[in-house]
């Protein structure tokens, strides 16, 4: 099958993530395995025995560049794991409360042993490096923009 026939979804959305609907969109008749990673808003982060509380996260994206970089991440996945069939990369933005899914990376393949787990892992790691999305943590004592550490190279 030509890679152009493979289903792919790259979306920044304010809507709730519908995991079943996304799975249906990246499933082919030949698909036998799907691996999903989803991140959630963590309400409590235990540090030094004192749990700081998160009221909500406020997400912001540079949408056209973010969707283009999601497409680039998917191309990188296909180069590394050519057996991957469908890829969905979706980031929810806006105000998101604890226990809410915020991001989804899903990959499908004919079998589980040809890279679906590794591909989904690679996808979330790369999203956190090069896809222009930011989150602000809002808690009882104020708010703070969270900044990543990765500095992309020119054209990366």
């Amino acid at each position, binding site marked *: 099958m030509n890679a152009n026939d493979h289903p792919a979804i790259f979306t920044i959305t304010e809507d709730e993530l519908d995991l079943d609907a996304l799975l249906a969109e990246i499933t082919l008749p030949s698909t036998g395995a799907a691996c999903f990673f989803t*991140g959630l808003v963590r309400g409590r982060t235990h540090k030094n025995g004192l749990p700081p509380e998160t009221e909500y996260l406020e*997400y*912001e*994206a*540079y949408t*056209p*560049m*973010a969707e*283009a970089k999601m497409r680039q991440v998917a191309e990188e996945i296909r180069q590394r794991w050519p057996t991957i069939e469908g890829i969905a990369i979706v*980031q929810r933005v806006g105000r998101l409360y604890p226990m809410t899914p*915020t*991001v989804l990376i899903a990959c499908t393949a004919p079998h589980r042993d040809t890279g679906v787990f590794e591909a989904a892992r690679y996808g*979330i790691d790369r*999203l*956190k*490096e*090069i*896809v*222009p*999305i*930011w*989150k*602000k943590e809002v808690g009882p004592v104020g708010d703070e*923009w*969270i*900044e*990543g*550490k*990765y*500095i*992309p*190279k*020119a*054209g*990366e």
Partner: protein
Amino acid sequence: MMKITLLFFATLRSLTGLKTLELELPPESRVADLKIQVAERFPQVAPALTQTALVSVNREYAADDLVIPDGAEVALFPPVSGG
């Protein structure tokens, strides 16, 4: 002079209070020249611009020596933190 559209995100948006800014630059200006001009106009973002801020030109990550094309969409933002 050439015109560019400058976009700010996350901390840089908070610090400047601006989402977008139309800006005029001399032809052949580089990303480094733009950073100097922005830092003069918004001193509060100067530390970020000289340290960790990222720049995209027409939606691709750009180095300081890139010559900015006329009409470019340029964005300034901190290292990303999606997920």
